[in-house]
């Protein structure tokens, strides 16, 4: 088996058994990047020398027996909004074209402690704002399953890198579906954990109350192993939660006997592609045959999630992105008249169209006179959406549905109408508002050969149920 076709668990086992080494592994993946990335543009930065140096160090530790675990010696790709000390971190924005962080994100440190070898930083929608990876200042990423199509977004580079074998697994972030949707479009597994499970320290903030870091992997086993390594309680993230149940790999069992699964009728209605619907319902049947109890129900409030989300996310973004002022780091305009004009010009030249659109909207909904009508109203609707999920989880262990209404659109078809693009987030976005965990796993392909994703949503802290159901489906589907 080629190294680039292996999962993380397979590769770490092969290294431990001496069949290959961490150095051979990283060289194989770097060669693949060299070969393929001109086509797909998964990476903004590839750290060749750094990766080989890390691999040598990790290999020595593996041989000394001080590093074991399923990620030891395995090459990983990181979304370019995760700070990495000494390694360029751009958020795919011109405004951070030269930003070299002085510290590393806690989630990345957790991976490094587990023996991960960092390959580089993957392309994304600028500041994670977008659903196609086309808003990147460094060119779009193409979908390895069909390069005429987008990989999804905003973690499009991470999902595409996994699909193209340009890494063994990748890390992304999910504010409204940005891990699950590209995973679905690229035919890989992606998971957004319960809010607070993975430290956001060192994740460049977009919508702080919604952002979570999570894995993009080739299978459910890797997903559980990576999430287990990423999770930790961190004093430097005040929303970080101390959990004692993050041994996610213990849930890798084939057992859905009696598991109550609800499919919202609202997730199968207008706008859903017929082939996607069929694939999702077929997946539900697989789980039913294995002993799960599947029924339909009305979740309600589904149409209100997108307007509530864009109000809250834009508001938080307008505040979070104030820090980019051309002084302490990042882009500064060449010509300006005085300090305030310098701020304005640096920001106007440094940010792309979609980012400016959301900063403007966010500034407006937070402004005096509109705050109650828009921002507070959205926070109240968020409370109602959370309540609707609470009621659903009183009846069901898992909510099952599609990840996105369609398979991956063609490049250049999405950005002309922002609201149309936002509507593509309809099945993923409420999960972030309610802080829930959600997983996306491949469940077939459409007539054009493009992957379809199955989404399963759990109640807060119920990742293990999701992993168990996803693993059972994966075993049954093969």
């Amino acid at each position, binding site marked *: 088996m080629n190294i680039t076709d292996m999962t993380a668990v397979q590769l770490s086992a092969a290294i431990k058994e001496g069949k290959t080494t961490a150095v051979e592994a990283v060289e194989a993946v770097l060669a693949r990047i060299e070969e393929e990335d001109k086509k797909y543009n998964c990476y903004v930065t590839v750290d060749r020398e750094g990766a080989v140096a890390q691999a040598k160090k990790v290999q020595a530790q593996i041989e000394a027996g001080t590093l074991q675990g399923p990620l030891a010696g395995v090459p990983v790709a990181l979304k370019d909004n995760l700070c990495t000390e000494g390694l360029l971190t751009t958020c795919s924005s011109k405004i951070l074209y*030269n*930003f*070299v962080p*002085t510290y590393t994100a806690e989630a990345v440190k957790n991976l490094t402690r587990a023996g991960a070898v960092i390959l580089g930083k993957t392309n994304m929608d600028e500041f994670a704002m977008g659903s196609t990876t086309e808003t990147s200042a460094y060119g779009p990423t193409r979908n390895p399953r069909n390069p005429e199509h987008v990989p999804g977004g905003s973690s499009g580079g991470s999902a595409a890198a996994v699909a193209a074998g340009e890494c063994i697994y990748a890390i992304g972030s999910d504010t409204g579906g940005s891990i699950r949707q590209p995973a679905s479009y690229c035919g890989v597994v992606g998971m957004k954990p319960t*809010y*607070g499970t993975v430290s956001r320290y060192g994740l460049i903030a977009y919508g702080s*109350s919604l952002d979570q870091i999570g894995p993009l992997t080739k299978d459910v086993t890797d997903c559980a192993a990576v999430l287990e390594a990423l999770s930790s309680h961190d*004093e430097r993230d*005040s*929303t970080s939660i101390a959990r004692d149940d993050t041994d996610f790999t213990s849930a890798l069992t084939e057992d859905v006997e009696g598991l109550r699964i609800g499919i919202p009728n609202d997730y199968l209605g207008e706008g859903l592609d017929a082939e996607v619907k069929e694939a999702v319902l077929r997946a539900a049947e697989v789980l039913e045959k294995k002993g799960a109890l599947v029924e339909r129900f009305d979740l309600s*409030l589904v*149409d*209100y999630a997108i*307007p509530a989300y*864009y*109000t809250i996310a834009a508001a938080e973004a*307008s505040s979070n992105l*104030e820090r980019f002022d*051309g*002084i*302490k780091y*990042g882009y500064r305009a060449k010509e*300006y008249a*005085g*300090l*305030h*004009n*310098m*701020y*304005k*010009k640096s*920001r*106007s030249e440094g*940010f792309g169209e979609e980012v*400016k*659109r959301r*900063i*403007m*909207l*966010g*500034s*407006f*909904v*937070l*402004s005096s006179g509109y705050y109650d009508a*828009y921002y*507070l*109203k*959205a*926070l*109240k*609707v*968020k*409370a*109602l959406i*959370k309540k609707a999920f609470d009621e659903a989880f009183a009846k069901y262990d898992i909510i099952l549905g599609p990840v996105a209404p369609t398979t991956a659109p063609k490049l250049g078809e999405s950005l002309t109408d*922002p*609201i149309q693009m936002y509507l593509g987030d309809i099945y993923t976005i409420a999960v972030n508002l309610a*802080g829930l965990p959600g997983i996306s796993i491949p469940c077939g392909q459409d007539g054009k050969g493009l992957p379809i994703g199955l989404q399963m949503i759990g109640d*807060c802290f119920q990742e293990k149920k999701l992993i168990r159901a996803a693993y059972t489906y994966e075993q049954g589907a093969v």
Partner: protein
Amino acid sequence: MANIISDETIEYVGILAKLELSEEEKEQAKSDMGRMLDYIDKLGELDTADVEPMSHVFPVQNVFREDVVTNGDEREQLLSNAIQEKDGMFVVPRTF
């Protein structure tokens, strides 16, 4: 379009957002924001009179710690990201 964004509003939002838009961008922003607000107005269909706004899904409280310095002196590294620095300080345009 129900929400008409005036020139004054776009100017004001530009000040809040610290963005300088060209005339063409302003027109685009007026239309984009109007459409988006029309869409967001859908939230008005829901009665939220008795609902508490929810900023976080979990009951989060302030997290306190002792005020002890734990990080080292990183002045050189931090300044190395600045476009302009002088004598250990960030350089900004004249403010007076």
